[in-house]
């Protein structure tokens, strides 16, 4: 319960963060731009023509709206997933260091609150912000296109949820980094480094043959095995958004690993936090 109160405080603080508000404003602006500039002619449930930015109406191959929109959803999912992770790491990097700031953490630790609750509350608070951002972007896009075509395809929202879950793994590492070094810059760097390393880890089997030494190849494969496969999940998110069938077993395994990584990172952070003097 105390962790929930801490999470509420994080949300209250988030409402005053300019960078975070700017991110939501940017998403809203993009949705409004799409809403105002895109016109679609739908005839009997099939997309017949598209008009963008007031240009001349362009006829398209007539097909069911949900099928016609799949490439668009795939592209949007790419931007939401990777853009969300990138900007998410930047705008949330300051929350944990702010909690751990001298003069604030001493006071919080004197309150009847367990140390683990403080950290978990911060983690939950930031994840709520991230989930709202991903769902706002994905849900907003579904809504805009739904209003224009009459077809409300929820798959993009599920893809957004995958983005939020992946961010949970990244933020686990960012939070733990903040506990160790109490720096927003270091926390953001950890998030972005893991983001990039996670993309590399997704292509580990394609990359590893380029190592000439067996030892180096094995080290690379062993190290990348523990990293969250960001690009793999991104690809799955795009497939889901485009209503392409995905291997549910592979999806469960990948997301299970992602959750495990996040939990391990937070556990490491809590372990360290419990032993720290301030």
């Amino acid at each position, binding site marked *: 319960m105390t962790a929930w*109160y801490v999470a509420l405080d994080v949300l209250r603080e988030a409402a005053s963060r300019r960078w975070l508000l700017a991110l939501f404003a940017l998403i809203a602006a993009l949705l409004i731009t799409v809403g105002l500039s895109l016109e679609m002619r739908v005839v009997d449930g099939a997309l017949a023509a598209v008009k963008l930015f007031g240009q001349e109406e362009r006829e398209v191959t007539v097909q069911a709206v949900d099928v016609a929109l799949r490439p668009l959803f795939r592209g949007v999912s790419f931007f939401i997933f990777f853009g969300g992770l990138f900007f998410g790491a930047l705008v949330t990097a300051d929350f944990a260091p702010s909690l751990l700031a001298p003069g*604030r953490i001493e006071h919080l630790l004197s309150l009847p609150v367990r140390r683990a609750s403080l950290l978990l509350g911060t983690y939950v608070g930031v994840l709520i912000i991230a989930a709202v951002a991903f769902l706002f972007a994905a849900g907003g896009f579904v809504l805009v296109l739904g209003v224009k075509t009459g077809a409300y395809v929820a798959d993009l929202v599920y893809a957004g949820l995958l983005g939020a879950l992946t961010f949970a793994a990244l933020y686990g590492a960012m939070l733990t980094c903040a506990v160790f070094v109490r720096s927003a810059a270091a926390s953001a760097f950890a998030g972005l480094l893991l983001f990039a390393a996670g993309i590399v880890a997704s292509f580990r089997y394609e990359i590893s043959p380029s190592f000439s030494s067996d030892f180096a190849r094995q080290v690379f494969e062993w190290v990348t095995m523990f990293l969250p496969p960001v690009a793999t999940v991104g690809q799955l998110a795009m497939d889901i958004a485009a209503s392409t069938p995905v291997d549910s077993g592979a999806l469960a395994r990948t997301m299970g690993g992602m959750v495990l990584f996040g939990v391990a990172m937070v556990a490491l952070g809590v372990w360290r936090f419990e032993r720290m003097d301030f």
Partner: protein
Amino acid sequence: MDAALEAKGIEKIFKNRRALAGVDLVVPRGTCFGLIGVNGAGKTTFIKTMLGIVRPSAGSIRVLGGAPEDIDVRRRIGYLPERLALPPAWSATTYLTSIARLKRLPRPREEIDRLLVCVGLASARDVKTRAFSKGMKQRLGLAAALLGRPELLVLDEPTDGVDPLGRAEVRELLREEQARGTTVFLNSHLLSETERICDRIGILHAGAVLRDGPIEALAAQSTRWIVRFAEPIDVEGFTSNGDGNYHVEAEDPAALDEALARARGAGGLIVALRRDVPDLESILRGEVGG
């Protein structure tokens, strides 16, 4: 003696630096205790140790009969840190509401309103803390410490940045708390403030308590008296400090009476006599040197 704080052999070593070197201290409940010492003596480290913010390297500490890490113990403590950092976008009311929630106080609204009046921030209740002066931040921190009517108030430099009138208000507030039965543990570099507020003090130096006890007891150990005569005198044992007063050393009343008799025998007319009670600054200087 029912103690609010019992510390036995508390040591704290940070990497290569020994911040506390075996602190032994007992603070009785209901007292107003002032911890004094020079910079780097270990005062703030000791305060953090008694709150569980810093874990001791050796020794044991009990606060309000329990361990500092115990949630139920901490529920009964109010703390104002030395440099309180407030969320800049929050108002005073928002901040206190957050603290009240973390302290699990039922229906805190009335208490928050009362405390904002007590610390003189009623008119600034909705002002964002980024616009607060240092003194206003201290007042808000004090209100946060007082939330929930704690049994032990631990205040690290509570009047730092507070104007003279505000200091008087803080003193009055602390007297009220003490009258309610609250134990006050104060760390202030303003020795005159400590002297006016506290009834017991402890002198911390190089990480250890040199002396502690009631202020009167520490001060009363002086054997020096100040005598004022109607006319200047020249008597052995009496030294003038140039302002018309004379100092004389006397171990006990008999020695004092003998010295005064000598002065009277030499024609001195005594118009005033008082013990040369040292102030905290003198006591501190006497203990730690410098």
